């Protein structure tokens, strides 16, 4: 079931995929007393996460990013059903959807682990932290108890946590400490792949920076890959190596973080980056008109077209495919691909005609 157990060491490793997602579709299919509803939360997503990188997924609320990571971890439950596509990990010999629950439970935590937003989802409030370590990691590490706790203590020290936290109950720790403990818990088995779902959203800014630094450090030390999901673009700017932008269930742009911030090609990405308020910057920030679509009844064609300053006729009819316009830079936008030009300079006042835009 599990192929190679070799961990990548430090140092640059050429782009070697650890996760490949192909044409993944997952819909919420619901029936409430005769009313059928289908919400296309994950709609035809193809992406690849390489070894030893942090891949950021950005998007607004209900853009499908949470559904995406649930599906990628095969942790989706009805009504969220996988309709099509594949999710392959390099450490598994087949598609994750073809594996039994029992096989999955042997992989989870050891090779594939999670850091979640609410640390209380992981830490049992009525058990001391050490019990949580036993619950999650003991059978994967498979050592006598004394040796196991030596490993745990060393791991905590490496993360600059005092082993005394093991004796505490979760409620005795502050929010930031709890989140650090969950990171320690998620990394104790040195997993190849970690899914982080808004891990710092509930934290104060001062603590957030610490926790992010800790995630970054432990990732570099272990050479694991992280799929890092948050709505906060400033966090992505400082965390992610590559960044994928989701809008209404689809991936609309993907590029190395620096590239996407310097040269966003999709008008939605461009807006997200332009409208970020910064200390020391008083230039007026515009908001996008309209609102994200309802995924049970998305607009035809490009899902962004009702709000797009560049919308053309074709955008209303056809769905743009995610195509590579530059090496490593994929975008799903007719306007951007018709002529590659700095969409970042387009303001809302620009008439929706491609011909007039600067090239």
């Amino acid at each position, binding site marked *: 079931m599990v192929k190679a157990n070799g961990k990548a060491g430090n140092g640059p490793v050429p782009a070697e995929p650890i996760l490949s997602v192909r044409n993944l579709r997952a819909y919420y299919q619901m029936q409430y007393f005769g009313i059928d509803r289908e919400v296309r939360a994950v709609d035809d997503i193809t992406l690849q996460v390489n070894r030893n990188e942090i891949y950021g997924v950005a998007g607004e609320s209900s853009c499908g990013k949470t559904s995406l990571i649930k599906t990628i971890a095969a942790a989706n439950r009805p009504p969220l059903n996988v309709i099509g596509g594949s999710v392959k990990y390099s450490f598994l010999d087949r598609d994750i959807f073809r594996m039994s629950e029992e096989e999955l439970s042997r992989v989870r935590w050891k090779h594939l682990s999670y850091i979640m937003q609410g640390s209380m989802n992981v830490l049992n409030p009525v058990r001391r932290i050490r019990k949580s370590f036993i619950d999650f990691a003991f059978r994967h590490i498979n050592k006598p108890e004394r040796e196991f706790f030596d490993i745990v203590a060393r791991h905590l020290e490496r993360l600059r946590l005092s082993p005394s936290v093991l004796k505490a109950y979760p409620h005795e*720790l502050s929010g930031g400490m709890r989140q650090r403990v969950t990171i320690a818990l998620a990394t104790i088995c040195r997993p190849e792949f970690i899914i982080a779902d808004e891990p710092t959203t509930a934290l*104060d*800014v*001062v603590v957030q920076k610490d926790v992010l630094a800790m995630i970054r450090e432990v990732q570099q030390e272990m050479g694991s890959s992280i799929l890092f999901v948050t709505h906060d673009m400033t966090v992505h700017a400082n965390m992610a190596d590559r960044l994928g932008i989701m809008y209404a269930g689809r991936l609309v742009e993907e590029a190395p973080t620096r590239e996407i911030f310097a040269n966003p090609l999709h008008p939605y990405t461009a807006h997200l980056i332009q409208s970020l308020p910064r200390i020391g910057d008083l230039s007026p920030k515009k908001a996008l008109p309209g609102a994200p679509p309802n995924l049970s009844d998305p607009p035809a064609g490009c899902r962004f077209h009702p709000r797009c300053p560049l919308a053309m006729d074709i955008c209303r009819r056809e769905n743009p495919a995610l195509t590579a316009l530059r090496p490593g830079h994929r975008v799903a936008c007719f306007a951007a691909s018709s002529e590659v030009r700095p969409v970042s300079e387009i303001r809302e006042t620009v008439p929706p005609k491609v011909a007039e835009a600067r090239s």
Partner: protein
Amino acid sequence: MSDLLIVDSVTKSYAFGGLFGRGTFKAVDNVSFTLEAARPEIFTIVGESGSGKTTLARMILNLIAPTSGTIRFRGTDLNAIRGSRARMDFMRHVQPIFQNPFEVFNPLKKVDHYLFMTARRFAGASKTAEVEAHADAALQKVGLSLAEVKGRFPHELSGGQLQRTAIARALIPGPSLLVADEPVSMVDASLRMSIVNLFRTLRDDLRVSIIYITHDLATAYYISDRIIIMQKGVVVESGPARQVLDNPQHPYSILLKESVLSPETIGEGILGLARHTGEGPPEASAEGGAATRTLAQPRSS
């Protein structure tokens, strides 16, 4: 009568503990500031969870009473507001804006119900046409119209639309002060600036003063005129917003500003440098500091 709001050495303390060893904990400790009636402004209260900013907001809204000190609105001590008439009169001038746009309206009720109710009770409208005219006028001020909102349930509107509708409702009585507690923290990024920009329009065009409570220094910098920074109930720094944020003096303000992530620092590895600046050595927070910290969070986030 030139002062709109005077907050004068206000303290709010809570008792904690059981039968033995009771203690008090000051959620807000000796806070004072003044808003002038003649010069509407966006006055920002910045702080992290447990800083007392929400407690302060609730005192200004007269939902809880200060333990000591006084809050005067247009010369009237809020403590003296008793009885439903006085309270209604106060609400005509001071209105709140809440954090979660999806919770501001009852999910089982149509959104317009609150607009119509406010128009009936505060704007003196009684006929349906009049009531609708008031609601529409208020919605126009926030960039919506009654046609977009009428008959809709909260789940049929986006977070941005709901928050703007909530602001429209608060504008119907013609208030002179809005108290907005984290109004954009749960609004999506692409819609957030529409709310923030709206506050500026309200100040300039409608001459409404706004107390903007937030943990986000970047939006605070963008719209505030004056700012106070709170830590554990105490104001550690105050002054004109740009001056304070461009050049913070108090160590805590400096720390806050340094912790704000910015897109300018892509790939500069600033995350690698930040080690345990926040909570001191981890050993300290493990047990000792933890108890007070949980107490110090009267649900402000």
